């Protein structure tokens, strides 16, 4: 048996490796069954006692994809246009905004990069124009003399860094959220893919991922100015050219509502810093009306309107949110916050977040609060106002708190977001998939059953058609499936639903190599060769066909892997593992068995 010693050694080595990699999965499965059989209390106790061990095991097992175990798959995109605006900072003017809007529009339509489009639009307008008008950075040596190409390069670098930072921050937030085995990977130049197994609380996750955590402290508008603007804005929407006076009777207002587009959705108030309120579903409509430039002009120059984060009152079963008038200027931002923790209000027992500021922040905070005693200060996060408490007295210790939170879960998430740091630019959800755990279970069962049924049919068919040869191929086939599992476990691959389909398909295709060999052996036998000679030439003559066929299939699997995302990658991996394992088992394992039977035992093998 010259040469077969090495082959046997290889087979044994692979088997040992496979068992080594699959053992934790098997152990974990046993463990889970044991836990399932326990009583509720005993189970909690047991899991707590063995937490570290189970956790350790889980890291080594064959992981199931989100489509099989349920969870959320979210693709986030960094808003590059906002990043560009952010980088330009104080230099932003109307022309800049116009260029950016056009670039963004174009990038969206033709599916190109915003940065490239931005530079293009900029140069189209005026070839001589220099982008250095808008961008400065001492650290990166971007000055007034920088060329457009240098700035484009710099913008790309900045975006790259921003995506990196975003990944870090998102990871930080997800870790604090407490998901087991989250996966966060970068995709392309401005996207990240977040996979959260077992998570189904979609709304909470969305807020967690999207929030830029831009915390701002702003002064509020002068109530009289605000009220005056409100009257003028309502008058602006009046179909009849009358002056609008809030002193009018409310009954009349009801009538007005029918005709005034703004009043159809909006309840004007003009009390204190509250501009007015609208039901949650109508806020988008109100935004559309109020954001018009000619309406914005009716507001005091330094004032902007922001919605409250939480409903202020309820009417006819609908929640109403209020628009608050705040100064455009931001007094303090979240980066001065050094510590934040969830607490409860001593009097109302409502959840809140208390924050501590650094020295510099505390100094500004003391000055701002000291100068505005008796006036409200708005605390805004990501463009919505959480609270606007009236300053009772100067605050010197750098302490402040965010009240007006809906639940303690919200307080926790907020602390999480504040402490993870602010995102460089907003992240938009461009794709999202949530699978419930029950669907996954049904899929696993269906996939497993069909794999088993397929295996049985193929096994019997091979024995029927190729007799002893077929039985040998069947041994190889079963080993092949174990190998595939082992390879998947070793590479920490994730088993997805298409992946299971890939394994089922491999069962059908794996016997191909053996079919090729056996048919060749039959041919050689027919040509009059002895069994041993026929087997020899059967294996060697079919080798080139087997290799070519498998290499080409492997290449398509590689392409599938590099272009596909999520579940498709899983399919590609199982296909690759399947090809590698089936080549090994169909060529080497069957050969060793056949050689042992014919040469050692002098048995005769029937190939049907």
């Amino acid at each position, binding site marked *: 048996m010259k040469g077969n010693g090495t082959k046997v050694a290889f087979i044994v080595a692979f088997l040992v490796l496979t068992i080594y990699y699959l053992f934790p999965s098997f152990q974990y499965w046993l463990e889970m069954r044991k836990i399932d059989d326990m009583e509720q209390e005993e189970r909690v106790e047991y899991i707590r006692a063995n937490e570290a061990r189970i956790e350790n095991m889980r890291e080594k097992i064959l992981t199931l994809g989100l489509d099989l175990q349920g969870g959320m798959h979210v693709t986030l995109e960094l808003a590059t246009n906002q990043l560009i605006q952010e980088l330009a900072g104080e230099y932003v003017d109307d022309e800049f905004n116009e260029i950016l809007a056009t670039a963004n529009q174009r990038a969206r339509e033709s*599916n190109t990069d915003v940065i490239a489009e931005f530079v293009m639009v900029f140069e189209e307008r005026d070839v001589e124009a220099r982008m250095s008008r808008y961008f400065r950075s001492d650290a990166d040596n971007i000055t007034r003399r920088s060329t457009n190409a240098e700035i484009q390069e710099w913008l790309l670098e900045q975006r790259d860094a921003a995506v990196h930072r975003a990944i870090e921050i998102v990871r930080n937030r997800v870790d604090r959220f407490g998901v087991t085995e989250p996966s966060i990977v970068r995709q392309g130049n401005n996207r990240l893919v977040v996979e959260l197994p077992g998570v189904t609380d979609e709304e909470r996750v969305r807020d967690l991922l999207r929030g830029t955590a831009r915390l701002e402290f702003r002064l509020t508008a002068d109530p009289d100015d605000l009220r005056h603007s409100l009257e003028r804005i309502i008058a602006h929407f009046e179909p009849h050219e009358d002056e609008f006076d809030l002193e009018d009777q409310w009954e009349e207002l009801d009538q007005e509502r029918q005709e005034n587009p703004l009043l159809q959705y909006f309840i004007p108030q003009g009390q204190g810093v509250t501009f007015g309120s609208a039901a949650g579903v109508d806020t988008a409509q109100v935004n559309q009306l109020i954001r018009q430039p000619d309406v914005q002009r009716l507001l005091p120059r330094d004032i902007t309107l922001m919605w409250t984060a939480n409903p202020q009152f309820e009417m006819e079963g609908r929640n109403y949110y209020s628009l608050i008038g705040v100064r455009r200027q931001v007094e303090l931002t979240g980066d001065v916050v050094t510590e934040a923790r969830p607490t409860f209000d001593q009097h109302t027992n409502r959840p809140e977040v208390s924050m501590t500021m650094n020295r510099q922040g505390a100094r500004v905070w003391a000055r701002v609060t000291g100068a505005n005693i008796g006036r409200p200060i708005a605390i805004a996060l990501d463009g919505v106002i959480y609270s606007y408490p009236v300053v009772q007295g100067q605050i010197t210790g750098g302490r402040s708190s965010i009240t007006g939170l809906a639940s303690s879960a919200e307080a926790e998430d907020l602390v999480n977001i504040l402490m993870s740091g602010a995102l460089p630019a907003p992240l938009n959800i461009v794709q999202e998939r949530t699978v419930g755990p*029950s669907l996954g279970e049904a899929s696993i069962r*269906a996939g497993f059953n069909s794999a088993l049924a397929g295996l049985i049919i*193929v096994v019997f068919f091979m024995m029927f058609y190729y007799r002893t040869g077929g039985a040998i191929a069947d041994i190889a086939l079963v080993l092949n499936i174990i190998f595939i599992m082992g390879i998947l476990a070793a590479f920490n691959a994730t088993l997805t639903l298409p992946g299971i389909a890939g394994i089922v*398909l491999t069962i059908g295709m794996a016997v191909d190599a053996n079919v090729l060999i056996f048919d060749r052996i039959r041919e050689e036998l027919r040509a009059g060769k002895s069994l041993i000679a026929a087997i020899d030439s059967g294996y060697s003559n079919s080798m080139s066909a087997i290799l070519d066929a498998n290499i080409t*299939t492997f290449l*398509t699997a590689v*392409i599938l892997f590099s272009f596909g*995302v999520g579940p498709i990658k899983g399919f590609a991996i199982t296909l690759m593992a399947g090809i590698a394992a089936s080549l090994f088992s169909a060529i080497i394992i069957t050969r060793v068995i056949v050689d042992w039977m014919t040469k050692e035992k002098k048995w005769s093998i029937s190939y049907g």
Partner: protein
Amino acid sequence: MRLFETANYTIIPHRKVGYIISGTLILLSLVAIFGRGLQYGIDFRGGVEIILEFEEPVGVEEIRSELNVHLGTLPNIRRLGVGRDMLIRVDTEMPTSEVQRIVTSTAASLYPDNPSRIIQTENVGPSFADDLRNAALMSIIFALIVIFLYILIRFKKWSYSAGAVAALAHDVIITLGIFTVLHGIVPFSLDINQVLIAAFLTIVGYSLNDTVVVFDRIRENSLIFKTESFDKMVNRSINNTLSRTVITSLTTLFVVTILFIFGGDVLKGLSFALIIGVLLGTYSSIFVASALLVDLQQKTRKNIA
């Protein structure tokens, strides 16, 4: 048992029949694809897709008209399996949470005694869908190019590459055509989505497998039967490998058919594509790849002579 042991069919001389069948199928497929348009799934067209599971089966029409009122757009609704699961697709820019809220409240008010819950949600932004579509198209084109080059390197003649790639394109186009025609007629999803692209590339891989086996035999026989004319030798090679071609196709067909029947709703589209792919792949390796090889070889020989 031995099938096709002494197979000696006259295939290559009758290749015109194959050309006519394939040509007609491709033409019909192209008419369907350009006429009806490819029926994209959620990941290639964007929008929001929700699978709603009821306790008891419900009718599609009621939900559709009711949702139309609340969503402000006509949703695409399809029954999955026995009718307890509803697949609801909405082309909207509305936030997912809003669509989910509308769907659950509509279902609850429409069927107060038949509780339902959302078991899967998918939301794809329009530009992201474009990206996925481009990536899918690129992967198929890229696969064909790589295969062309690999075969060129292994078989040293571009006519082998052309024959193989033509057979693959043939398989993909006809499968796409069948999917487009049957979409909405059969009771399972035939949306063209990412999973289906995976199926297409697998079909490409499988069909190529068959083709390469035949080509390999042609290469081998061309060294043995040097005096035989090329078309006779190709015919001989096809017959030599016929047994293997049929057996492998059979075993693969077994498993994909089982997957189709028992694999659950999610894998129906994928396994259906694989069934068609295995059948087409087996056919095309003989009637398209080998037949074209003969014609291309004879043409180049004439040119040389």
